[in-house]
């Protein structure tokens, strides 16, 4: 986000709160990759992630009057998106996450291995929903563990335990994959 955009955010937020559709569209554009990213990394399916992200923004449109500030907006979007993802994951009896689904929309970084990154995203979406949510908030959103605890409304120790177990499962799966090759 550019410095100018950051300066304008409170103004855009205030205009959106008064029913200005153009300002609301700007808010959507500003936060769409955060919301879509949480959904995609938790669910591992682009179609479902887009549907869920659209629902989150529709809910925001209905509740915009209750949001107090731009920082409250970010907290609200992360909380609502993550809770919806956890619910959606629990409703699914099984997950079919393809490498191509996990890969699309991510630009490859010069130093990273794109296949390894896609594999991590695939394995992440197969973790228990709360572990996937905690890892997504920790590594996509770079959130502190105490902030994740507040967002998910769970004790800090539970966040630590989800993170430790989730990362350990990912590590084991990646090592197994390496040893198979």
């Amino acid at each position, binding site marked *: 986000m550019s410095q100018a955009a950051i300066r304008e955010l409170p103004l855009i937020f205030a205009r959106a709160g008064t029913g200005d*559709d153009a300002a*609301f*569209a700007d808010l*959507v*554009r500003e936060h*769409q*990759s*955060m919301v*879509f*990213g949480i959904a*995609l*990394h938790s669910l591992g399916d*682009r179609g479902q992630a*887009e549907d869920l*992200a*659209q629902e989150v*923004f*529709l809910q925001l*449109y209905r509740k915009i009057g209750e949001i107090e500030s731009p920082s409250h907006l970010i907290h609200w979007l992360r909380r609502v998106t993550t809770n919806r993802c956890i619910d959606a994951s629990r409703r699914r009896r099984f997950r079919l996450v393809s490498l191509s689904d996990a890969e*699309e*929309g*991510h*630009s490859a*970084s010069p*130093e*990273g291995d794109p296949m*390894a*990154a*896609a594999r*991590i*995203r695939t394995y*992440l979406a197969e973790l228990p929903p709360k572990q996937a949510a905690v*890892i*997504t908030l*920790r*590594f*996509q959103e*770079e959130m502190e563990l105490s902030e994740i605890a507040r967002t998910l409304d769970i004790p800090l120790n539970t966040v630590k335990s989800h993170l430790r177990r989730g*990362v350990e499962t*990912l*590590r084991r799966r*990646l090592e197994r994959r390496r040893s198979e090759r």
Partner: protein
Amino acid sequence: MNLEQQLREALRRPEPPAGFAERVMGRVAQERGTPPRERTSRRRRLSAAAAVLALALGGWGGYRIEQNRRAENAAEEALTALRIASEKINLARENIERHSED
């Protein structure tokens, strides 16, 4: 690269599909664009449909009651006719027996 770095790398925010914000705004417009009058008339249409259904069910019920009543009357008339016929046959048989005794 250790696993935490790999995770940060793999979980960078992705770009949503092209036109995402426009689709959200389309749904917003769809939701907001349903005027109260239209919502009212939709409620009215539902009420009218419910009333028509109730009338149709009521009419069908009334028709069935009338049919049952007619069937019962017809059965009763048939029984009366049989009773009369039976009495006439008995009378005729008694007359025949009386004549044959004479």
